[in-house]
């Protein structure tokens, strides 16, 4: 029985991990916490809804388009709203991301209305049975996508020139600029990739919940908690944080006390507060000193 909850928790946690990975990537390279991640994810998931339900596209065709949409959205946010404000203090940039979030929210309600939408599973069909564990095909897609994207990201950052330049620019902007590394283009790329990761999480999580204008706020909060748990500057930390948050949440459902089940959200955040009190830099993070 407990194995079943572990599998469910890891599937849920994978989505938090993708969300956290996107936010950490943006924060690491640009010093900005993207408070608009939820609404960017929500908007991308609605684009997925239009493709999958409105136009009847199969999942494998819609996913790349949603990823591309998320990427372009992130690029546009950096280029059109953050770069013109580049001299502003970081706190103002956070508010810019909130402003973008409000705009996207209003646009989504205008385009898709207020009724919750339901999205189809990535792959339909009967669940797979492995011993006494049942895995839905959709959860399997979630696992595979998360693993592929995480490994892809580490390879990009570790082995490619542009990925190394992303890490370099994150560590020392001035040093990077003086070597001819185009820091603004790197920021734009980070935003594109970060929002695209959220878009993937959104289109995978939407079939498990009803998609509306606010549901992604809760996913983002868990992703944020996962990122904080992992240290907020560590990409592996974001993944591990996401999986732990998902796992813990799922195991709380397994506890045979109704009160615990109902308070699972509260308890997840409580655990994180306790953990950060013991280890303020998160699981894999380093103490950071940044301009505010």
């Amino acid at each position, binding site marked *: 029985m407990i194995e079943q909850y572990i599998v469910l928790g890891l599937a849920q946690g994978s989505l938090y991990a993708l969300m956290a990975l996107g936010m950490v990537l943006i924060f690491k390279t640009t010093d900005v916490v993207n408070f608009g991640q939820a609404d960017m994810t929500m908007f991308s998931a609605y684009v997925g809804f239009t493709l999958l339900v409105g136009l009847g596209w199969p999942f494998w065709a819609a996913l790349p388009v949603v990823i591309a949409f998320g990427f372009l959205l992130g690029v546009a946010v950096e280029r059109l709203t953050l770069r013109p404000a580049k001299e502003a203090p970081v706190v103002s940039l956070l508010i810019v991301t909130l402003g973008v979030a409000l705009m996207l929210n209003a646009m989504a309600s205008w385009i898709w209305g207020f009724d919750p939408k339901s999205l189809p599973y990535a792959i339909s069909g009967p669940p797979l049975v492995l011993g006494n564990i049942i895995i839905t095909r959709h959860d399997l897609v979630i696992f595979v996508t998360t693993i592929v994207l995480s490994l892809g990201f580490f390879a990009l950052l570790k082995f490619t*020139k542009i990925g*190394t*330049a992303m*890490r*370099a620019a994150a*560590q*020392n902007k*001035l*040093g*990077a*600029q*003086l*070597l*001819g*590394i*185009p*820091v603004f283009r790197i920021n734009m790329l980070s935003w594109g990739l970060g929002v695209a990761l959220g878009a993937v999480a959104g289109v995978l999580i939407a079939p498990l919940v009803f998609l509306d204008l606010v549901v992604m706020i809760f996913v983002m909060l868990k992703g944020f908690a996962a990122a904080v748990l992992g240290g907020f500057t560590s990409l592996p930390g974001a993944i591990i944080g996401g999986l732990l948050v998902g796992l813990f949440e799922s195991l709380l459902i397994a506890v045979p006390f109704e009160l615990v089940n109902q308070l699972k959200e509260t308890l997840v955040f409580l655990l994180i507060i306790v953990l950060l009190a013991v280890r303020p830099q998160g699981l894999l993070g380093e103490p950071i000193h940044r301009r505010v």
Partner: protein
Amino acid sequence: MLALKDIEVRYGPIVALRGVSLTVSAGEIVAVLGANGAGKTTLLRTISGLLRPTQGKLEFLGHDLRRFSPEHIVRLGIVHVPEGRQLFPDLTVKENLWMGSYTRRDGFIKEDWERVLSYFPVLRERLSQPAGTLSGGEQQMLAIARALMARPKLLLLDEPSLGLAPMTVQALFRFLKDLNSHDGMTLLLAEQNAHLSLNIAHRAYVLETGRIALEGAAEELRRDPKVQRLYLGAEVSAG
């Protein structure tokens, strides 16, 4: 090669450089001397495009540098080793050097890699170590090595001696001298250490509160009574 004419730079209402004219010819070592706050860093940052002059001309090999971004200026061949070195501390030595050649697409990267490591053999032993774990002297070597990986035509150095042990500083200046005389590298060096700078430089400028107070051959400046009194201290004599 590089020519500045009547350059003025402001930080808001504050004028940081006023009427600065300076030239660097290919193959020269030119030193810019001056106390803290005299405008040396501002001058180098203006040349590398981090700051924009409000007045004056700024030319490098026939290009008007005022039109270019810092990234583009690197591609033109000016590489700036900034004050405080500005390494990527969590990247390995190897990755730091790799980033030095970021803008290059030519086929000589491997060749430069070998040459740069032959200048600084200690870096070869530390290739897979994070740059942040190096000693101060090694970090300065890495900063210069990384800049050389960009294959500069003109190397700007801002206070390379800062925070280094006297022995290390001696070795560093000997290296810069060799880089110039053997490889023909052109250097523009901003330094508070006037004594060592005037030893290796061909020509020098003295900046005082954003203006050029003195200029001339290094030899002449070493004998100038004002330079001796203000920058070289009492114990140093010419030669």
